[in-house]
């Protein structure tokens, strides 16, 4: 997914000279041709993430659109204050492209893990967070962001969801106000029952314990790829149609769940059960495989 996105960006900067790519000494190999062709638009800024975010805020204030690329914790953790103040508080729009998701660099230890990026960014009112499920979807989301030059964050994962592995599920239509972009996709069985709904937040969800089992038993599956205000409103409407809801969030779910509950407001009708699956907050101080971290450390939290 990351190579596809970097390749797309390399092509886009030729068409749009307002795009400036800043690399945190990562992606230099994939972007080398673009760096040679457009040296003023692709800068390997070096290993100074806080300064790089500040620099990007200045670029935005100067009428350009910065795209920042590095490993998730070095951007979201180390440069958190710069993201909060220089970008969001100061209305300086930038695209942060983070590699590593929760535990892509699982064997490198806690310094390279970042299972709390989404919740931390939501808590500082980041308006547009995304975790695409496929390469194709990631390019679609990227194109949308570059067209609108939004304040945006793409969480690149090394995993993808192959929906063809669940032949009982067929894509169903849902109305999104943002027609250009599917903030979530819905798949349903042919039975038209509304007993069980499974919701996945990003492709790493499938590694959480029970996820595959619940997908195979559900009536409908929703894959959430963009987290913004519109998604929360639309998703709550879907949740209220079902009796049992299983939510799989492969990162710290605090802010996502808080926002969902605040929008559900009433539990008088459906759903009668909401069960959340997410990884335990911990420092995984061993060389585990990514899927093992999720499998062995899935926590179940009952919401209702």
């Amino acid at each position, binding site marked *: 997914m990351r190579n596809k996105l970097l390749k797309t960006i390399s092509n886009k900067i030729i068409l749009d000279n307002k795009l400036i790519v800043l690399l945190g000494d990562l992606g230099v190999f994939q972007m080398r041709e673009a760096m040679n062709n457009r040296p003023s638009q692709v800068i390997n800024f070096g290993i100074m993430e806080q*300064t790089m975010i500040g620099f990007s805020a200045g670029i935005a204030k100067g009428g350009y659109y910065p795209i920042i690329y590095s490993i998730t914790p070095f951007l979201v953790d180390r440069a958190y204050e710069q993201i909060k103040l220089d970008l969001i508080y*100061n209305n300086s729009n930038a695209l942060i492209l983070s590699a590593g998701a929760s535990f892509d660099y699982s064997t490198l230890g806690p310094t390279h893990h970042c299972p709390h990026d989404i919740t931390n960014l939501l808590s500082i009112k980041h308006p547009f967070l995304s975790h695409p499920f496929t390469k194709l979807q990631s390019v679609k989301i990227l194109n949308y962001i570059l067209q609108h030059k939004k304040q945006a964050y793409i969480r690149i994962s090394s995993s993808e969801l192959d929906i063809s592995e669940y032949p009982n599920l067929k894509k169903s239509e849902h109305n999104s106000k943002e027609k250009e972009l599917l903030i979530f996709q819905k798949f349903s069985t042919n039975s038209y029952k509304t007993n069980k709904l499974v919701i996945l937040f990003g492709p790493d969800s499938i590694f959480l314990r029970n996820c595959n089992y619940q997908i195979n038993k559900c009536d409908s599956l929703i894959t959430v790829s963009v987290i913004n205000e519109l998604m929360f409103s639309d998703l709550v409407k879907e949740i209220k149609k079902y009796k049992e809801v299983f939510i799989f969030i492969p990162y710290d779910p605090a802010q996502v769940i808080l926002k969902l509950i605040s929008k559900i407001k009433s539990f008088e009708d459906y759903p009668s059960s909401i069960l959340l699956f997410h990884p335990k907050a911990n420092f995984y101080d061993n060389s585990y495989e990514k899927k093992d971290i999720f499998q062995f450390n899935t926590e179940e939290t009952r919401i209702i």
Partner: protein
Amino acid sequence: MKEIHLNISINEMKNLLYENTCKILKKANEVNAGHIGGSLSMSQFLLPIIYYLEIEENFNYRIILSKGHASLGLYSILDLLNINKRPFNNYCTKKSDSFHGHTCSKSFNKLISSSGSLGHGLPIAMGFAYTQQLKKSNIPVICILGDGELQEGTLWESLLHIFKMKLNIKILIDFNNSIETNTIKVDKVVKDIVKTNDFSAHSYSDINKAINLISFIGPEIIIFRTKKLANVSSYESKPQWHAGIPNRVELSDMLKKVSISLED
């Protein structure tokens, strides 16, 4: 290149500095807020510079107050020079239209961004200056830092890029030599790695030299030697006045002791 200098006489500038000093002290007492120590040290060089850029020349530039806690100094200058009276009048009034205690970008159209957290201004200034370079524009970016703030790592990281990229940034350091931070001799370290201009904020000719440097294209670092609570004799250089608020008795005493030091 033609030498430029302020047309306003030194005595007229001293009168402006006197008026500005009194305004800052009275406002802090009135609203029970403000960092008067840094506001007064910074005003010693910023008032003549803004006077030249705004009143005498209508110069095109951008500014960021990285030491955002000195916002009262900037707002007082904007009020005194009739550039924008709203931020000073509404400074920390605690009402819905008030301005908070750090710099807000809504206060002045030349400000690139709001500020307050130390170490943020120079990277933002650098990004903005980079876009000006891409546009082949000569608009300089003035970034005001405090000497204590120089301990922030982002500023040292920024210096690695600014001179290599030859960005049109003017870094003005309000070197008020705060007692709380002088265990680290940051001025010596800066001088070891990049070319700097070491000026006195109490010298009119040094301020004129700084204005010349602002009008040239390219990066410059200007260390302005100042004092906390500058020009308020017997109160100067005392760390408690970094963010200390004078009560009525102290204000009255301070106002009696305002004496502007500005030599040729």
